[in-house]
């Protein structure tokens, strides 16, 4: 399926690959954090703004 003509893996030294993957997991974690915290965080913020409007 994949072959060297397509991916030229020689430019991905093990060190660069580790560095890239470390950043990927950091960013994936960040995106998941935003996704999961969006539920309670936004409900709370919305209530805060609502209370302010009512008050």
């Amino acid at each position: 399926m994949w072959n060297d003509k397509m991916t030229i893996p020689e430019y991905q030294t093990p060190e660069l690959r580790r560095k890239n993957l470390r950043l990927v997991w950091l960013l994936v974690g960040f995106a998941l954090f935003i996704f999961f915290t969006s539920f309670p965080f936004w409900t709370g913020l919305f209530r805060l703004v609502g209370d302010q409007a009512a008050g």
Partner: protein
Amino acid sequence: MSTTTLTHDEAHHHDAPHGWRRWLFSTNHKDIGTLYLIFALTMLFLGGASAMLIRLELFQPGIQLLEPDLYNNLVTNHALIMIFGAVMPAAAGLANWMIPMMIGAPDMALPRMNNLSFWILPAAATMLLLSFIVPFFPGGGTQINTGWTLYPPLSTQVGMSMDFLIFAIHLLGISSVLASINIIVTLLNMRAPGMTLMKMPIFCWSWLVTAFLLILVVPVLAGGVTMLLFDRHFGTSFFDAAGGGDPVLFQHLFWFFGHPEVYILLLPSIGVLSHVIPTFSRKPLFGYHSMVGAMLAVATIGMVVWAHHQYTIGMSLGAVTYFMIGTIIISIPVGLMIFNFIATMWRGSMTFETPMLFAVAIVLMFTFGGLSGVMLAVVPADMQYQDSMFVVAHFHYVLLPGAVFGLFAGVFYWLPKWTGHMYDERLGKLFFWINVIGFNITFFPQHFLGLAGMPRRIVDYNVMFTEFNVVSSIGAMIFGLSHLLLLYIIIKTIRGGKKAGARSWEGAKGLEWELDSPPAFHTWTVAPQIK
């Protein structure tokens, strides 16, 4: 920009793989960029067809062609297809093609994830189109008549087509986040030695900011539509007042994504202009550092002003004042970008090839759209303008020049690099004039319609609005059909034409112009040294 020493150029002229496998399994940034651009062009025509149907219906008062729910579904589809199907993939196509060549990298950092990011898109587009088609079948439920904002409680009452749409949005979001992660990793880890962040081309900066914005806001939209899905099927009451929830919560979630989304659409085009204008002015970009700062400022402030889309929901005076002031403050960094563009042109040896024509038109028309945006940002005024055709005119003046025309400028600018052929300049200019005149005939009268009180998202209207609607619809037909000329120009350029040199434009600067036109299948396999 920096100067370069080419220690080794594109020496590895591997043959490109052939047949369908080349495209389905591609991990080559140029091929995937091409796939993104073809996908975006296809969706541009689909979204454009829905827009032309909308304008055909509005040509006359009364109901001519479309049932009200079908009309509203077309409005919904037009927005979603254009934003998620056309503009974002087109910008991603430019990013895929240009970023590795601009920073001296052999490919994107994660080539296989790049393949996945693209191939999720056709699946998502299929789901999106199914959401439109399903209601035509027995038992298919109602049309999605909510508009692209999907506000509950209406969106909790729509039939199964809404579920298709929610899953389409999830897929589109996953694709965007994966592509963004890839772009960030590529830009931070794969730059050629010596290319510091502040030597990076502005187009790359624009995408770095855009990619971070995407990662910050797309998960919130995903959260919002997931809650919507739970409300529809799993008995939750996030947005159901009867169960203790509130539909306005969805508006906050949606616009926390939706407003930065405007900048997600705009910034890559600003990046394109930052290359086009210096090239055809034969001067370096005025204010590189301030341009980077302005993009960061736009992204940061743009994250915290979302509720200006919701002034009429009944927020406190303090809250609306904050959102109003924050929104108006954004005009400072945006104005700075515009002044930088004008200062770049100032006393330059300007020529007006098609990309530059688009660039000049963008500076004029995007500024105009920005000014009507300031009008809408003012709370008491917005109470009058909201949900009127004035809003439609405003955001089309922002998004068409600011995003779409910027992408057109980019396509014409880099088409010689991609294909190895110069496009037909005469046809390019013809396309520009028909396109821009058609655009203005379509959307300029909509300001007057809105100010006179014509609501948007309404299939029928009072006869007093007829004249401007006739003009707008005629403009829309001219504007819509002009894109067939664009398609013809692109196909003609791919098939042949005057040979383009490595540096296709006299004033072009940057690593990408050191490569052949078209570039080899693999480029920068040995990184250039940046001084």
